[in-house]
């Protein structure tokens, strides 16, 4: 019983991390058709901001958390302004290559200005304690991570449904030009999407840092690849799809780890991706892919 609870929590917390990052990718993609592979570097930048703030200013974890969130939002919005605004409206591949380019440049900046080796930033480790409920022992970090993700999704949903900017974002995912024809500024909608994407990256960064306790240049790239797969499973451009894909991947990973015998541990990734392939044979556009317009211009 306690084993099952522990593994469920594992699956939820893995899924939560993937879902947070996948949502960040999906919200930008849904509005401007850009697969932002530099999203992982925003996460890494959040980690470096901890090192900077803690050496210059304070070690208070609460201030550091606020710093990470602010750093990620600023980095994300700045990337849009500097790199992605110039290729707006260009081909899908142009945006994709730009994002890869930005990602490589940032990783190398981290290498040059920071260090190729992991730099310690252990201020969030205190989030990870072992809690004992009777016979069940669980990690507090996993509970925080799952809860924070659900709260973030709830706030995001309310924002998208109730505020004018949120509605404009949903409308823009369908017909950006029509949103501009209503007088709503394209720059504001896109900057808003990048700000939200950055905020979600910051939240993910806090939990990643609490687990790792160190920051290194490439730390954001792998989670973004996994999140990308989550988006593909859920249906690229669909926000509920990104959340669903993230949690499905988390669950699949844990199920595979539990079921596979120790000796076949190396096959875990292969097993997960086989499942992904099967899902894509069943639903080639992803599980919750938005319906395609099939009619004529009526």
């Amino acid at each position: 019983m306690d084993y099952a609870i522990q593994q469920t929590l594992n699956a939820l917390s893995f899924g939560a991390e993937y879902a947070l990052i996948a949502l960040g990718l999906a919200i930008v993609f849904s509005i401007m058709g850009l697969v932002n592979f530099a999203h992982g570097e925003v996460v890494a930048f959040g980690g470096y901001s901890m090192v900077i703030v803690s050496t210059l200013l304070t070690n208070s974890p609460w201030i550091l958390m606020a710093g990470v969130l602010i750093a990620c939002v600023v980095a994300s919005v700045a990337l849009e302004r500097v790199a992605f605004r110039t290729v707006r409206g260009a081909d899908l591949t142009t945006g994709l290559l730009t994002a890869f380019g930005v990602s490589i440049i940032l990783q190398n900046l981290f290498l040059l200005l920071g260090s190729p080796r992991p730099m310690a930033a252990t201020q969030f480790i205190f989030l990870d304690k072992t809690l004992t409920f009777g016979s069940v022992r669980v990690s507090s970090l996993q509970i925080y991570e799952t809860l924070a993700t659900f709260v973030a999704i709830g706030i995001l949903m309310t924002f998208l449904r109730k505020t004018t900017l949120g509605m404009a974002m949903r409308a823009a995912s369908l017909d950006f030009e029509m949103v501009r024809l209503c007088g709503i500024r394209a720059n504001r909608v896109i900057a808003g999407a990048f700000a939200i994407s950055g905020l979600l990256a910051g939240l993910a960064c806090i939990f990643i840092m609490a687990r790792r306790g160190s920051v290194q240049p490439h730390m954001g790239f792998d989670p973004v690849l996994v999140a990308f797969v989550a988006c593909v499973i859920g249906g690229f451009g669909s926000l509920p799809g990104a959340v669903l894909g993230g949690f499905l991947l988390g669950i699949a990973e844990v199920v595979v780890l539990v079921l596979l015998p120790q000796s076949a541990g190396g096959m875990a990734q292969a097993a997960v991706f086989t499942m992904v392939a099967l899902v894509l044979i069943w639903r080639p556009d992803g599980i919750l892919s938005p319906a395609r317009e099939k009619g004529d211009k009526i």
Partner: protein
Amino acid sequence: MLQTSSLKAFHGPIEAVHGIDISVAEGQCVTLLGPNGAGKTSTLSAITGTVRATGTIRLGGEDISRLPVEDRCRRGIAISPEGRRVFANLSVRDNLIMGGALQPDKAQLNREIEDWFTHFPVLGERHAQPAGTLSGGEQQMLAIARALLSKPRILLLDEPSLGLAPMIVAKIFEIVRDLKARGTTILLVEQNASAAIRVSDYVYVLNNGLISSHGAAANFGDGSDLMGELTGVHV
């Protein structure tokens, strides 16, 4: 109110409109008639700024031809576009909120939305429904209401009768006539010549990207010969 001079519109390298001068006076309803591919929609897109264009466009004397799309809307140009383009994933009410997004007073905007719901009760009944579930005629009403909520100085209507059943077409033209009676300045694009001529003050006939004739609506009679002349199909 609105004047264009030697307005050219481009789709990529292709010139779709070859320099036209049109003028819409305040309170008038002016119609652009023409067959498919004549450049009617391209002309409207040039006015709203969604395609590349040269020449000048003046709104109330101000040259707006260099302004981005959003600012032209803020100066007072609103469009109910071809194919209606309602936000299918948003509710009917949220579509209208998008139309009035520039209005700073949200309570006032809510009152105006309620006014539209009494005006078009069918929209009021479905205010919480996704706009994609509305019928073509209902979507057209929604698109017109959305455009008017930005309090435009001129309303561009692109083929409001396209793809609708004859009874609904009659209803849509009734709405246009009603808008005109309330003093709305309208630039209408249509293929339904006779119905359009009946509601307009002035008519431009567009063919192959050029104005082939223009004049007061009365000069065009009931318009029945006009479409035959334009398309070569006489019925």
